[in-house]
């Protein structure tokens, strides 16, 4: 009999089994896509909310600044007048306004609340620069220095650029780890492993078929994610070397399958396998930066994240898809992912049992 025939029919059987499994389809394809829609929708259209400033009485410095650079200031600040000083301060305390400003002689007094440190910082910086500007203008000379700010990415590095690869990473991780661990435990407890052992089909063929199905499913996930994220509403712009994400995805899936195989080889029941899989996938998704960028998290957390393959996959995919870096940038991550796959595979082979007895 031909090994290829066995491979094809086993792949077909497993793919049908997956396609008909509504639960698996939901959790590995639809559920992550829902996250993409929600995250992309919420964060993608977030205009930086303006700071609300109350002008108590007349504040000539501010009025002057508004008169000259009103458009630019209007982007960051919403100014409203207030004649009642007491009421204005009360609003700041309550958080209805971010600051109240009054001018006493040549003093510009900024009342702020420490409750929102970011906004209060913004207001203070803003007022400072307005006063500096006014001081400079009072000298009657042109300013000696100018600031021009420019973003390093083209201005498209919006939330969707980050969320597409990172949520995809999470989707791939759960599909890979769940798929492998559940398959292995189910096959063992139901006696399918036994049955396969008793057939003349080479055992590597059987496992290769399972891996092939997972890789195919991963490519479908990848295509769906990219297609949805590229809809005008979300506006993903793929980097020039986005195709490098494909081998990246495949290496990542191999690493996740290996982890799943280890869990599946070790766990005695489906329930155990499911619980342990969750225990691995969820922390991995958080630490791997699938739900939020890790730049703001503590150093220990960022270090810890490197024990999980997802961290490398997310970084690699973000680089080639979202950040538009060159194809070579993905190679180290791919190497590490394949390393995970090899080590996991070896451990799983050691733990492997044909039957539950």
């Amino acid at each position: 009999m031909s090994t290829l025939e066995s491979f094809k029919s086993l792949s077909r059987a497993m793919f049908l089994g997956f396609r008909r499994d509504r639960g698996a389809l939901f959790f590995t394809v639809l559920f992550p896509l829902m996250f993409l829609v929600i995250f992309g929708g919420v964060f993608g259209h977030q205009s930086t909310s303006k700071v609300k400033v109350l002008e108590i009485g007349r504040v000539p410095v501010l009025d002057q600044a508004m008169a000259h650079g009103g458009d630019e200031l209007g982007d960051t600040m919403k100014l409203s007048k207030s004649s009642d000083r007491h009421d204005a301060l009360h609003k700041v305390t309550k958080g209805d306004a971010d600051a109240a400003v009054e001018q006493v002689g040549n003093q510009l007094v900024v009342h702020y609340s420490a409750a929102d440190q970011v906004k209060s910082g913004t207001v203070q910086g803003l007022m400072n620069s307005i006063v500096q500007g006014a001081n400079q203008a009072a000298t009657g000379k042109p300013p000696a220095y100018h600031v021009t700010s420019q973003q390093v990415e083209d201005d498209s590095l919006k939330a969707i650029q980050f969320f597409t690869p990172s949520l995809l990473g999470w989707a791939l991780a759960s599909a890979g780890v769940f798929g492998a661990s559940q398959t292995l435990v189910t096959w063992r407890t139901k006696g399918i492993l036994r049955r396969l052992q008793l057939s003349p089909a080479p055992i590597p063929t059987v496992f290769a078929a399972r891996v092939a199905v997972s890789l195919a499913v991963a490519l479908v996930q990848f295509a769906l994610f990219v297609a949805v994220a590229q809809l005008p509403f979300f506006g993903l712009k793929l980097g020039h070397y986005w195709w490098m994400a494909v081998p990246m995805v495949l290496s990542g899936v191999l690493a996740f399958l290996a982890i799943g195989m280890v869990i599946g080889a070790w766990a005695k029941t489906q329930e155990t396998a499911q619980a342990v899989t969750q225990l691995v996938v969820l922390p991995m998704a958080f630490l791997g930066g699938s739900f939020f960028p890790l730049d703001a998290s503590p150093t220990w957390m960022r270090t810890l994240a490197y024990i999980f393959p997802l961290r490398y996959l997310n970084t690699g995919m973000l680089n080639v898809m979202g950040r538009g870096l060159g194809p070579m940038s993905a190679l180290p991550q791919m190497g590490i992912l394949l390393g995970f796959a090899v080590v996991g595979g070896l451990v799983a082979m050691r733990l492997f049992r044909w039957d539950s007895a």
Partner: protein
Amino acid sequence: MAETIEVSGLRKRYGDVNAVDGVTFSVAEGEFFGILGPNGAGKTTTLEIVEGLRQADEGAVSVLGLPPWPRNPRLLPRIGVQLQASSFFERLTVREQLRTFGSLYGVPARKADAMLETVGLADKADVRVEKLSGGQAQRLSIACALVHDPELVFLDEPTAALDPQARRNLWDVLSAINTEGRTIVLTTHYMDEAEALCDRVAIMDGGRILELGPPAVLVRGLDAPARISIASGLLDAADARQLPGADDVEDDGVSLVISTRDPSAVVAAMAAKDALDGVQIRGATLEDVFLELTGREYRA
């Protein structure tokens, strides 16, 4: 002619337990061979060693002239093994299931489909395996074991948990398979099943074969008394004891039961007294042999 299966001096230990403790038997070509025994008797382990799933600690096994261990790809296409009725790929239909298993042996889809007829599942071809009844699932698992037309078939408790109709139906299927010239090895808890199907049975307990032979021979060898029962009141218990050949008489008010080793003499005497209303004569069965050999106490 070489025997299909030859096993001699087989031993297998698990820790302190001698699961199989010196088992020797052979199965001839075309024979229907049964292995009986209570749970934990070592039936399954013996079968698994013969199938090549486990390695024996000691002893020799030859199946179709080949050693089954280590996994022997030359032997595997020639044997068919039916495992529990749950050993199916998930969410496939009956036909897909059978085709998939067939393809592992290089069996074309058309031939796999024909097997559905053999086991009477043709009308269930497009039903998912999860939706099958117990009997249907058993028949599918037997079909999966037969799909590549093996010379030797192993069946592990094929009728466990089936209703009486489904059991009889499956017996017919199994007899038909055996009539085609295949050798069948079967384990079972059901003595009537072994009596109805098997040419020879081995009764196992504690890892050993206690008795081996055709069911009828084993039953005769037991020399158990026949039990003749008639309705109470037809014959006085004291009179019954006087009948020629009667060993023992019991009357529980519903039936009068005479134990005897010479049932024909007793029946003739009863006929002379016109006391044969509702007469039933029960000889010993394989079950009596089994209980005699393995004891009556309950083992969990």
